[in-house]
């Protein structure tokens, strides 16, 4: 077997949150005590599910109306590009999103926050990236909401993102935040990312060019997935730890 494959680059220290983060109470009983075992990349990690535009139905990228009516709240457009760490666009990739409504309530049975549901807002969307890695969806700006992590704890406004990328190793679930939110400094989930510059990359940027006159404010949010290792390996697997 002589074909060469490229594994994925290891995530540099500080760029990802740890499992055990004391300020985030839910980690206490859910974070493993043993460090994960590093394994060399093989076909199992390099390959991964491929979902793209075929998963996206008409209207899936527009969350501003649902069940025959207009959602309440501040309309926004969120757009950006998905790249790998070497700046190559990740095309044809499924992006799944979910969020609270403009009152800070999820359309979910487990959300007991005493804020109104909006029958015209599902809070769920899907979009696929184009050839240039670009995606775009229209939605309502989510509100902050309280949670029980500590006394008077509030989650900053955020939208959840789920992406596959090209392989099992590139799977990413994250959250996008909004610029200038005073809750960011107090949020143990946002603050769990050790590297300050990496943390700031979770905050989208207001963008006048994306803003639609008389309709919706625009925000830009680029997403960067893991890039390839520089050194190929032989035989459908790697001989050493990476």
């Amino acid at each position, binding site marked *: 077997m002589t*074909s060469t494959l490229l594994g994925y680059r290891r995530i540099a220290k500080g760029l990802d949150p740890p499992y055990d983060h004391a300020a985030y109470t839910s980690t206490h009983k859910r974070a493993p005590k043993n460090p994960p075992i590093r394994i060399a990349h093989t076909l199992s990690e390099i390959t991964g599910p491929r979902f793209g535009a075929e998963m996206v139905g008409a209207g899936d990228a527009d969350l501003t109306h649902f069940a025959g009516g207009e959602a309440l709240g501040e309309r926004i457009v969120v757009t950006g590009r998905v790249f790998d760490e070497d700046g190559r666009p990740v095309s044809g990739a499924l992006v799944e999103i979910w969020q609270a409504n403009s009152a800070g309530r999820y359309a*979910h049975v487990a959300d007991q926050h005493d804020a109104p549901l909006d029958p015209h807002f599902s809070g769920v969307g899907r979009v696929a990236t184009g050839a240039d890695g670009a995606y775009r969806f229209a939605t309502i700006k989510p509100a902050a909401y309280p949670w029980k992590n500590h006394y008077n704890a509030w989650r900053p406004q955020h939208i*959840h993102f789920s992406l596959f990328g090209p392989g099992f190793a590139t799977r990413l679930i994250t959250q996008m935040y909004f610029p200038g939110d005073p809750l960011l400094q107090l949020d143990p989930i946002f603050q769990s990312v050790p590297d300050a510059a990496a943390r700031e990359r979770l905050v989208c940027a207001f963008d006048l060019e994306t803003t639609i006159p008389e309709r919706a404010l625009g925000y830009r949010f680029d997403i*960067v997935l893991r890039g390839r290792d520089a050194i190929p390996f032989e035989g459908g*697997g790697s001989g050493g730890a990476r």
Partner: protein
Amino acid sequence: MSRLTPSQTIGPFFHRALLHEGWNDLAARGAAGERIAIEGRVLDGDGAPVGDAMIEIWQANAAGRYDHPEDRQEDRHGNRPIDSNFHGFGRVATDSEGRFRLRTVKPGAVPGGGGAMQAPHINVSVFTRGLLKRLATRIYFPDEPLNESDPLLSTLPAKRRARLIARAAGAGAAERVLNFDIVLQGADETVFLDV
């Protein structure tokens, strides 16, 4: 300098966005191979059920081929064809008692590093509130001769190794049933992998 986007927790409210009809049954389209069901529970450090986890699996088909352009084994051997009825991805959420169930086919062995074969395995991602990034693990199979020489299993002490191997849990009408509990923390902690 890497501009990687950091991971954040999936939180408790993902179900409506991420669960899709039929994604818990990978064999539904009539895939070739031995039918199996994988059942298990996700438990926390107190042994309490984790009722808001999402499990994803990714695996090769019964011939040991991944449905992905970078798996070019057929080009070399001609004997590991793509199964047009099998993609190899599944996703399921745990119920309030932490239980999950997936139906699929047993994957074939796939190549590892340096020409070694890896024993048949299923790649697993675990997401839940309280996990700031996904946990990865693998499901291996009991009574599988290749387990002895598998590049990962053979490096582990016996107790840890056993945590990666599913347990036979009987036979259903149309499939073999395997049990694979995922213990996030504690003495019986699952072996998690840094991929």
